[in-house]
C-alpha cells in the first residue's frame, strides 16, 4: 500500500513541483499518472523512490513513512520498488542476461538462484532468445522489455514506470503496456506515468491526473482527459 499525505515538493530553485498531494494506492492496483509535461509526474515517482525528499508531508509504503528513512535503509526500499525509465538505463557493456543478473548480484543472491531466476524472467518478457545480445543490438521495445525484466527480477511488490513508452512507436507501446498489465495481474502494484492518451483511455484503469503540481482528477476506470 502506498499513501501520500499532504505531500509538497519545492526544489532548490524555488519551483514548487507538487503541492499538497494526497492519494492512496492499494496493493495490486494499476494506476496511470497523467498530465502535461512539467505537471509533476516524475517528481511524485522520485519522491516514492526516495530520490527526493518532500518539503512537507509524509509518504507511506507498507505503513512505513519513507520520508524518515535513514540513508542506509534507502537501498532496501528500492529493492521493493522496481523502476523502469523512458531511456531504459541499461548497462551498454553488459549482455541482456548480465543486465538482469546484475540486479540480483546487487542483493547478493545465490549464484544458483540467479541462474534459475534470470531465464524465468527473460521468458516472461519474451526475450529468451536474446539473452546474449547487447542492448544496442536490440530495438527500443526489446530494450524496454529488458529493463522491465530487470525491474521485476527481485520480485518487488511495486513497479514504477516513468513514461516507459515515451521513446516507442504506438504498436510497441501497446506491447509494453500489456506486459506491465500482465505483471500487475500477477500481483505487483504498477504505477505508470504517461502521455499516451489512447492507451490510458482503452485500459480503463485508475487515472490520477496532475496539472501544475496539483491532482485535478483521481478516477477509477478513468480516461486521459476531457480536453477538446
Amino acid at each position, binding site marked *: 500500500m502506498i499513501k501520500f499525505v499532504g505531500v509538497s515538493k519545492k526544489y532548490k530553485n524555488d519551483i514548487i513541483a507538487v503541492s499538497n498531494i494526497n492519494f492512496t494506492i492499494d496493493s495490486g492496483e494499476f494506476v496511470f499518472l497523467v498530465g502535461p509535461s512539467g505537471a509533476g509526474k516524475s517528481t511524485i515517482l522520485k519522491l516514492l*523512490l526516495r530520490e527526493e525528499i518532500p518539503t512537507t508531508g509524509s509518504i507511506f509504503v507498507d505503513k512505513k513513512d519513507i520520508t524518515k528513512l535513514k540513508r542506509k535503509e534507502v537501498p532496501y526500499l528500492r529493492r521493493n520498488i522496481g523502476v523502469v525509465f523512458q531511456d531504459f*538505463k541499461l548497462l551498454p557493456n553488459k549482455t541482456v542476461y548480465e543486465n538482469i543478473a546484475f540486479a540480483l548480484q546487487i542483493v*547478493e543472491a545465490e549464484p544458483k538462484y540467479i541462474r534459475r531466476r534470470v531465464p524465468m524472467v527473460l521468458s516472461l518478457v519474451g526475450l529468451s532468445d536474446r539473452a546474449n545480445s547487447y542492448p544496442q543490438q536490440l530495438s527500443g521495445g526489446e530494450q524496454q522489455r529488458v529493463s522491465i525484466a530487470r525491474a521485476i527480477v527481485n520480485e518487488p511488490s511495486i513497479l514504477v514506470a516513468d513514461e516507459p513508452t515515451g521513446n516507442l512507436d504506438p504498436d510497441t507501446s501497446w506491447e509494453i503496456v500489456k506486459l506491465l498489465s500482465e505483471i500487475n495481474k500477477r500481483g505487483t502494484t504498477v504505477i505508470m506515468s504517461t502521455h499516451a492518451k489512447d492507451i490510458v483511455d482503452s485500459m480503463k484503469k485508475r487515472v490520477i491526473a496532475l496539472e501544475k503540481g496539483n491532482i485535478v482528477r483521481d478516477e477509477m476506470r478513468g480516461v486521459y482527459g476531457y480536453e477538446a
Partner: protein
Amino acid sequence: MRLNTAAYYIREGLTNVRRNRAMTVASITSVTAALLILGLFLIIILNVDSMANQVESQLELKAFINDNYDMSKVTKVGEEIKAISGVKSITFESKKDALNNFKKQLGDKSYLVNGLENDNPMPQSFIVKVTDANMMKQVSEEIKKIDGVTQVSYGQDVVDKLLGIIKIIRIVGLFVILILFIISVVIISNTIKLGVFSRRREINIMKYIGATDWFIRWPFLVEGIVLGLVGSVLAIGILGFIYGYASDLVNNKLIIFTLLPAGVVIRQSLVYFLAIGSLIGALGSGISIKRFLNV
C-alpha cells in the same frame, strides 16, 4: 560478505584499473615518486634511530672520587651510584688503570709520563653507563650529590648537540612524510574521481536497483588500494636497489656511524610501505566516492 560478492568487487576494481590505463600509469608513477621520497625519509629516520642507539650505547660518564678514599669507602660510593635510577652499569677505574689508559692514548709518546708511577696524579673514578642518553644530565646531577665524588664529566656539549640534531631530523622527516602522504592521497583521489565520473551512469543505475553504498564503494576502494600497493612495491624496489649501493659506498668510507644494511632497512620498512600504500589508496578513493554517492 559472500565470496562471490567479494570476487565481484575485486574483478570490478581491477577492471577499473585496466579501463583507464593512462590515468592508472600516471597515478602509479606519481605515487611511486612520492613514496620514493617518503621512503627516503623513512630510511633516514630508521638510520637516525639506529644512530641514536649507537650513540646511546657508547655514552658513559665519569665520576671522579676523592683521592684520599680507600677501597672500602670507594665501594660504598659505587653502591650509591648504582642505586640511582637510569644507571645501567658501573666500572671502577683505579689510579693505576687510569694511568695505563692514559699511556695507551699517548701511544708512542708514552715516555712523557714515565716516572709518574710512584706519584700517580691520575684520579680514581667510576665509569657509569646510563640506560638512556636523555638521562645523562639528570644522572650526573644525582651523582654529584654523593659524598666523595669530586667531579662528574661527560661529553656534554657533543651529546646534547647530537641528540638535538637527531630530534630535528626526526621532526622534519615526519613532516615531509606527512606532506607526501597527503600529496599521494590527492593523486589517487583524482584518479578515482575520474573513474567514478566515467561510471556515474552505472552508479546511478545501481542506486536505483537498490545497491548499498558499500556495494558501490568497494570496487573503487579495491582500485585505489591496488594503485597504492603497486606504487609502494615499485618504490620499495627502487629504493632497496639504490640504498644497497649507497650503504655499501658509505659504510666503506664513513667514520663514526655505520648505515643500516640494505636488507634490514627493506625488511623493516616493507610493512610500513605496504600499509602506507594501501592506506593512501583507501583514503584517496574513499574521499572521491563520498561526494559522488549522494544521489
